């Protein structure tokens, strides 16, 4: 099993969710995060002072999947989240040792 963790632009959430549902992934967890990277931040103005805001709002999506579909999931996210502009985000994949569904106690594959 793998966890696919993607950092995306906030307004892409619905599209990514739909893309994942389309390939049979029906569970995911979303976190509001701030991203720092190449994308230029905003400037906030406060009484004549300008404050550079270098941390931009992003969403982190975490999806636990079977190892065999991880690539498909990555591709689906890339396709749905891409705008082609700087700041589109990253996807990181790492290995999962085990998974449990709390409600039933089901393990691993059955838990996803």
């Amino acid at each position: 099993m793998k966890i696919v963790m993607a950092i995306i632009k906030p307004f892409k959430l619905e599209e990514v969710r739909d893309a994942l549902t389309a390939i049979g992934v029906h569970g995911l967890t979303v976190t509001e995060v701030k991203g720092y990277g190449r994308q230029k931040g905003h400037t906030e103005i406060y009484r004549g002072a300008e404050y550079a805001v270098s941390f931009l709002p992003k969403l982190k999506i975490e999806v636990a999947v079977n190892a065999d579909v991880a690539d498909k999931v990555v591709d689906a996210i890339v396709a749905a989240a891409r705008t082609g502009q700087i700041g589109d985000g990253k996807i990181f994949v790492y290995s999962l040792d085990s998974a449990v569904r709390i409600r039933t106690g089901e393990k691993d594959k059955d838990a996803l």
Partner: protein
Amino acid sequence: MIRIFSRLAPALAIAALVGFAAPGASYAQNTPAAPAAAPAAAPAPAPAAKPAPPATPACAAAVAAVPETDKYAAVPAVPAVLTNCTPSGGDTAWMLTSVALVLMMTIPGLGLFYGGMVRKKNVGDTVMTSFAITCLVTVIYAVVTYSLSFTGGTPFIGGLSRAFLQGILSDVNNGGIGNPNALAPTIPETVYMCFQMTFAIITPALIAGAFAERMKFSAMLWFMGLWSILVYAPVAHWLWGPDGIFNSANDAAWFKVLDFAGGTVVHIDAGVAGLIAAIMVGKRRDSGPGHNMVLTFIGAGLLWVGWFGFNAGSAVSAGVQAGMAMTVTQIATAVAALTWMFIEWAHHGKPTVIGICSGAVAGLVAITPASGFVGPLGAFVIGVACGVGCYLGATALKKAFGYDDALDCFGVHGVGGIIGALLTGVFAVQQYGGTAGVLEGNAGQFINQCIGVGTVIVYDAIVTIIILAVIKATIGLRVSDDVERDGLDYALHGEVVQ
């Protein structure tokens, strides 16, 4: 710190009990406690700022009329006080309303205006400062400040004939013609006292913007309590007391300075004290943009609305002067807000919520001393001037000198107050408020305004420095670095916005 304060409450309680009890008796006995009260002290009783001549007291007639239209008069024995009503119900209605409006300026108005401009971790401390000052100054004002400000005494400070509000009601019975206070002849003195109290409340609350996000709450309370007695009371007496040295209605005044609604007494006073406090408390360790401009918007809106009570209420009557004061207040405020917005737009490429709100407050400040004396032209020029001036005050000036006037108490209230006070001397129109300005050929008025402003600045600065130095040496002015970093809300008040 706690120990000090836990002792303050009972002490205060005992002092006040003794004080209020004494005149309490004198009310009941209906004996004027203070022979030196206003009427006697009044060679020039009515300041030009508030000169609505009294109407024939309607209620005297009413009392006489009651037996005739007997059908409502079934109350067996009307107590003495009730047979003496006020000469003008209309003026009284407007002044009662104005009290509510001006109180609303501080709570919640100013608290929100300031609260939106601090970081989220300090918003509770910021709004609580406005609230606590409201409570503290109310008590002090009733005990001593009103008397020191508004009764006759010396040209420098008033007397104690109204300390603990003694005699404030019983005098009304003398002759049945209403309030004998020459400053407000057509309304009950209680109402006039409440109105002036709201001014004494907002002034220290304004100062708090300068040292926001880093001052100890206990030190703040001591400072405000002392300042409102040692600075506010005498300055109010100079400008508005019956025998004040700068009162334009006092024939014996050394210099007749115009201050219709408190440009000098309230705004310059607060601005200068704020500047001193910002310097003495020191810079914040870290700062950043305000956390919620919606709060600032609410605050600015309520300040604007409430300011009608401040300025038009300062006519102490519901008539022509109040109407023109309201008109010029509206115009100057709108012009200053647009001026600030367009400057910021040109300068930074974006118009901001906090910018337009700050501009509006700047306009309200600057028109304050002028509001009963100038017309639409004056209002327009004052609006533009303070829009530019306060923008620079809150940006370039602060940067140039490097002090950390956190919410621009001096930049807006100090600078705006000075601009307004000086331009009042230029644009005053004889027909509106009884005094001509430079434009009508009376260049001397401008000199008088400069003298008044200068004197207040110097006195205010010196006494503020002394008060703060004493507090610094005793309980300290500033929270620890840890408290500042974590936010005053958690650390000082045990509360946090979720």
